[in-house]
């Protein structure tokens, strides 16, 4: 199993550009999550999904959108990128939510200039 994969690994955007961060998991997990991690800060939850077709906001959803059309994929869309969105983005998945560990991808390092 590849686990959780993310693409791209690095990206530089100009202010106002848009992009989609891709996340795929091959563990047949129902739950998937998007976090951002800023230097010296903890992981902040952006959006999460409890199954295909179902998504919900986390702690910091503004400026982002998600969709979940399949169990495997959970893309994160940035519209009108801003410098405040410069961060490292991690996707994670878990079998359930209660009592279950989350498996993390390798991250996408995004810079908005």
């Amino acid at each position, binding site marked *: 199993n590849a686990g959780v994969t993310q693409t791209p690994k690095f990206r530089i955007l100009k202010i106002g550009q848009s992009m989609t961060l891709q996340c795929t998991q091959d563990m047949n997990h129902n739950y998937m999550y998007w976090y951002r991690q800023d230097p010296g800060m903890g992981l*902040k939850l952006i959006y999460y999904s409890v199954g295909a077709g179902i998504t919900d906001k986390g702690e910091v959803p503004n400026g982002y959108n998600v969709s979940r059309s399949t169990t495997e994929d959970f893309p994160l869309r940035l519209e009108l990128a801003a410098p405040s969105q410069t961060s490292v983005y991690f996707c994670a998945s878990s079998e359930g939510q209660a009592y279950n560990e989350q498996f993390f991808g390798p*991250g996408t390092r995004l810079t908005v200039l």
Partner: protein
Amino acid sequence: EDQVTQSPEALRLQEGESSSLNCSYTVSGLRGLFWYRQDPGKGPEFLFTLYSAGEEKEKERLKATLTKKESFLHITAPKPEDSATYLCAVQASVPGNTPFVFGKGTRLSVIA
């Protein structure tokens, strides 16, 4: 509001010098407390889950313990390869979907 505070922010140890990392939490009923290890440039890697006060779990040189207000990650005779950032997260025991709340982490450096 659920909160997680980790201390110290950074810790520098000599190889073989045992120590402990602290995770203090405030949560409306604890469903689970999780410890992760994160190496530079990588995603967090799961270490332990603790569910109730008094519980302990061990893995190689690491032992995690839990009380009603905090958790400790004890590192015995650390080696340079234990250098990493250690993250603590909690999940509240309330109805519905309750995402994890992460602390800022403790950055551990073990010097040979």
